[in-house]
């Protein structure tokens, strides 16, 4: 087991190297002078030269890559071209909002999708099942920002139950913070909920056809025990997998949701950085998000052992 864990973690290294190459390459494969691209359309030649100097763009390309990776490994992500602050400082400022939003979204999505999927599978071909499937297709199809604006219109502007936009920091108290994130996490969570509910329904349905479920019923176990202890646990592997894969969607959604609801998180930082062509920030944020995705999927792989003892590494 320990051997497998080490192997699995080592296997993420090539993936992250490729990610780093892509992120690094983004600036260099695009036609034109990278320094001029970062400086923008109205920069003087001196500005361009200054940026080139600052980012070390005069060095040969492999040296640039080496220096960049080396400083990344030391936790140094460079300095923002736009605000002149260290990138780590900018990210530190923004982490809280994104973290809170993601946690709340995942909690809401799991609390909604798992019961919905299990119920739909159990009562298959009934009203609940139809509802689940319609919700799943709708959740896939309606873009995050459309859902966000609809929720905002109904619950914030018309009913005035919740704040329209903005974020309250945890320092202002837990409840105001959560209150400011309810609509964003509902909007962000819809796609994720739809995804998980759909897979849960499919895999629970398959498990419910197994003999041991019939045995459990014959033993006279109540349906809640059967559904949770027998069906859901045995259906867990594909569900956990999709939870991991769905993190990619969630990260993409964070970027959009934070823009819609004006939340000062990493997603907004990214969009602002991209619009300002603040390259050190763009690189850092993409690396961080990709790293989180890879890490979560390692955890998902390792969790298989817990859900299915037949899987041994």
């Amino acid at each position, binding site marked *: 087991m320990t051997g497998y864990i080490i192997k699995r973690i080592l296997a993420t290294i090539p993936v992250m190297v490729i990610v780093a190459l892509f992120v690094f390459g983004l600036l260099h494969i695009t036609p034109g002078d990278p320094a001029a691209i970062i400086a923008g359309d109205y920069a003087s030649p001196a500005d361009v030269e200054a940026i080139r100097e600052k980012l070390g763009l005069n060095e040969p390309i492999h040296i640039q890559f080496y220096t960049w990776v080396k400083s990344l490994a030391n936790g140094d992500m460079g300095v923002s071209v736009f605000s002149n602050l260290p990138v780590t400082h900018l990210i530190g400022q923004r982490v809280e909002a994104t973290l809170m939003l993601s946690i709340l979204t995942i909690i809401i999505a799991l609390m909604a999708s798992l019961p919905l999927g299990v119920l739909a599978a159990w009562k298959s071909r009934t009203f609940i099942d139809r509802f689940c499937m319609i919700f799943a297709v709708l959740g896939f199809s309606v873009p995050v920002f459309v859902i966000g604006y609809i929720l905002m219109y109904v619950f914030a502007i018309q009913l005035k139950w919740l704040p329209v936009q903005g974020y309250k920091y945890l320092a202002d108290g837990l409840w105001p913070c959560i209150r400011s994130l309810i609509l964003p996490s509902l909007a962000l969570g819809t796609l994720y909920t739809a995804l998980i509910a759909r897979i849960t329904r499919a895999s629970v349905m398959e498990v419910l056809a197994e003999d041991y479920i019939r045995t459990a019923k014959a033993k006279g176990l109540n349906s809640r025990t059967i559904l949770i202890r027998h069906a859901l646990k045995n259906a867990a592997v594909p569900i956990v997998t999709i939870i991991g894969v769905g993190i990619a969607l969630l990260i993409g959604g964070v970027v959009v949701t934070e*823009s819609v609801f004006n939340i000062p998180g990493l997603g907004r930082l990214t969009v602002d950085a991209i619009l300002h062509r603040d390259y050190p920030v763009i690189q850092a944020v993409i690396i961080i998000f990709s790293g989180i995705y890879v890490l979560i999927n390692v955890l998902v792989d390792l969790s298989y052992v817990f859900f299915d003892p037949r899987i041994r590494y």
Partner: protein
Amino acid sequence: MATVNTIAASAPQDQVVGQDIKRGFKEFARRNPTVMISSSVLLFMFIVAIFAPFIATDPMELYPWDRLKPPSGDHWFGTDHLGRDAFARTVYGTRISLSVGLIVALASSGFGLTIGLLAGYIRMVDTIVMRVMDGLMAIPSILFAIALVSLLGGSVQNVIIAITVPEIPRVVRLVRAIVLSIREMPYVEAAIASGTRLPGILIKHILPNTFAPLMVQATYICGSAVILEALLSFLGAGTPPEIPSWGNMIAEGRVYFQFKSWLILFPGICLAIMVLTVNILGDGLRDTLDPRIARGMR
């Protein structure tokens, strides 16, 4: 499938064939209502996109005295902050969404198919390609796309490139998985034994097996490409703002959203309907073409 058989059985008589096709089509429509309904809706959208100039007025025309007007008889969807007719812009926006969706679906399937075939069949290519694909998949596609567009510059063409690239790994994985299972089939072994060359094996024996799942996947890609285009435009790193696209309309309308909600509502609803239709078509195709892949595809 029934259609093909009936055509083959009655090939000599043209008239009979015509009737059979008609009957076969009716039979297909009866069995697959979702495919029929969703493809009719899409056909309608195509017609709207193609005949946009006949349906709506000029989307660029300004009515400065009619700025931010709610929906009325003159302007069905109201007017935006520059006094442009929102209905005309919505109708023309269909063009952008449909063409981006279609081209991305075709391009990413094309590239993905080629790479996937080679990776699935040639071991050496496989190791390298799949590591690259893993890396590419680890980068959230929205981030990748906005970064690429902001560096390449905003244009419809660059938006298409930026959406296509992150979709390719999904196709590659699908195709590769199919190739890996098909290459062990006896008829492939027989082909190898009888001296068929590598291109022949790939094209004649393996390629046809990928079509059905690929078509389904391409449909889903089309749906997510439509969403991504709108998201990119919404975030300000997509289709240039002067081009009427649904994402741009929503981006421009968001400032006035609290009081002029129709500016976002109409393009938002159109966007949702289009993606919904494409996804339902995908589900329908999946169930029709290959019931085996009906589960856990996405």
